[in-house]
Each structure stands twice: as structure tokens, then as C-alpha cells.
């Protein structure tokens, strides 16, 4: 019944933010950010479960540790960048949010470089000289 807890916290926080917003916009923003962090942390444990299952699957599929680690890092970067971008967008800084997303995408590309090079090398190996 975690979803009820999460939704409850979210709705309560929303009401509070609406109440505070008129008088103290800064606190409203802080409250919203804090609520977001709480919900995120509460769900990180669940993500760990999912990742453990996927890890087992990958182990059975004999996926290289390099690939698996890289993909997990890509997902982590995506989550963090998404979270930061949403927070900044909530604060009305759409341009900064866009920059955070850009950074996330760039970092993901950099993470993917080793995998892509390995795959390109193997493909080059098969092709006759």
C-alpha cells in the first residue's frame, strides 16, 4: 500500500504548497523539492529490487559486466538528470532544466562509448580485410 502513502504525501504537500505559495513562494518551492526527494528516496529501495532481478537475468544471459554496469549507470544518470530537471522546472527555470537534461544526455553518450567501440571492433573483426 505504498502507493497510497506516496499519493497521500504528495496531495498533502500540494495543499501545503498552495497555501504557502501566496505568502512565501520560497518555502513553497523548498517544500515541493523536499516532497519530491522523500518520494524518490522511498522508491529507490523498490528500484533496487527490480535491478537485482534484472542483474540475475543478465547473469543468466551471460551479459558482459561492462555492458551491464554501463547500462545501469545510464539509467541512474537518466533518473538523476530527470529529477534535477523537474525540480528546476518547478522553480520556473526551464532553461536550466534543459541544460541539466542536455548534460544527462551527453553523459549517457559518453558512458555508451566503450560499448559502442567494443561492438564496432567485433564487427570489424568479422569483416574480411
Amino acid at each position, binding site marked *: 500500500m505504498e502507493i497510497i502513502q506516496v499519493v497521500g504525501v504528495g496531495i498533502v504537500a500540494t495543499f501545503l504548497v498552495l497555501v504557502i505559495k501566496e505568502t512565501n513562494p520560497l518555502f513553497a518551492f523548498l517544500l515541493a523539492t523536499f516532497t519530491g526527494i522523500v518520494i524518490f528516496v522511498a522508491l529507490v529501495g523498490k*528500484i533496487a529490487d*527490480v*535491478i537485482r*532481478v*534484472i542483474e540475475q*537475468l*543478465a547473469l*543468466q*544471459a*551471460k*551479459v558482459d559486466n561492462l*555492458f551491464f554496469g*554501463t*547500462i545501469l549507470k*545510464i*539509467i541512474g544518470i*537518466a*533518473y538523476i538528470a*530527470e*529529477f534535477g530537471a523537474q525540480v528546476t522546472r518547478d522553480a520556473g527555470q526551464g532553461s536550466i532544466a534543459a541544460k541539466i*537534461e542536455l548534460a*544527462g*544526455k551527453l553523459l*549517457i*553518450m559518453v558512458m*555508451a562509448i566503450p*560499448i*559502442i567501440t567494443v*561492438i564496432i571492433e*567485433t564487427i570489424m*573483426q*568479422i569483416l574480411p580485410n
Partner: protein
Amino acid sequence: MEWLSDWVKQIILLVMVATFFDLLLPNHSMERYVKLVMGLLIILAILSPLFQLMNQDFRLSKVMFALKEGWTGREATPFEQIQEDIKKLEKSQNHLIQQQTEKSMERIMTEQVEKKFAVEVVQAKIQTRLNQHQVPEITEIDLVAKQKTKEELKQVPIRAVEPVSVEINENELESTDSITKEAEKLKKEIINYLGEYWQISPSQIQISFEQPN
């Protein structure tokens, strides 16, 4: 067939992992990146048997053994045994060829000697061995001949039968010495002739005479 099930299992698991990753992603803009990497991984998994073939040096015997392990029901002859059989067959074939060559050479030699000299070949034996080019080479000639008696020689041109006189017989019996001398001479001639014809050294030729009866 184990490698096949392994291969399919790997591909299925990879697809499932990719789907989970897709579900895990927070927003759609990131989906493309993960999809690219997972797609490449799946392609690699699909091609992995090909990579294995490329990496191993491609030995037929190995493939044969792998197939044999795979087919439990059927019996396939291993490559090594086939090679052994080939060797055996080659050996026996060479032996047969050698024997055949010896026989025909013996026949030719008998004809030659009988035509050229006044002897009757009782037994001709040629021994050969294969040289390094697998061609038979004569190592020894063994010839047993019988000198034709004067009567036999005279049979060729048909003449009126002369009365056989005891005197001649006595002469022949007495002159065993001259007969052996003649035989020696004949022997030498035959050896020379054979040595020249077959291109072997006279020491390899042995000729013995049977006493004419």
C-alpha cells in the same frame, strides 16, 4: 543441441532485460540511448555463434567431434579413423600394385630370356621395393633356368629324325665339365643382358641352372 538452447535462452533473456530497462527509464528522451545499446547487445548475442566460429581456427576434426557429441543417437565415424582407413587402403593398394608389377616383369623377363638364349626358364622371381616417389624399383632378380638339350634345340627346325646314337649320349655325359663351362658362359651372358635391359647391377641378379634331364 545444447548450444542451440543456450543461444536461444541468451537471446530471450537479453530481450527481457532490455524490456525491463525500457520500463525503468524515467522519460522517453533517454529511451533511445538505452535502446541503442541494448539493440547492439542483442545483435551481438545473435551473432555470438558466428564469432565463436571465427575465433577458433576452423578444424574439421573438431567440428566432427562436436557433431558427434551432439548426435547421441547416430554414430558418425570420427575423422581420425577415416584418415587411418585411408592410410591402410593406400598401403594395401600399393602392395597390390607392387605385386602386379613384379608378376608382369617376371613374365616379360621369362619371354625375353627364352627368346634370346637357348634356355627354358623354370622360375623367375623379381623382388621390388617402392622408392620415395612410390614407384617400384627392382632390388633382386632370381632366375632358375634349364639349358635346353640339343634335341630340344634341334626340334625347332624340323628335320628328319636321326637315329639316336649312344655315342652322343656318352659324349654328353662325359663332358659334364664342358657343360658347366658352357653354363657359366651362358649365365654371364644372361646376367649382362638382363642388367643392361632392366638397368640394374649384375650383383642383383642371381641365375642358377637346373641340370638338363
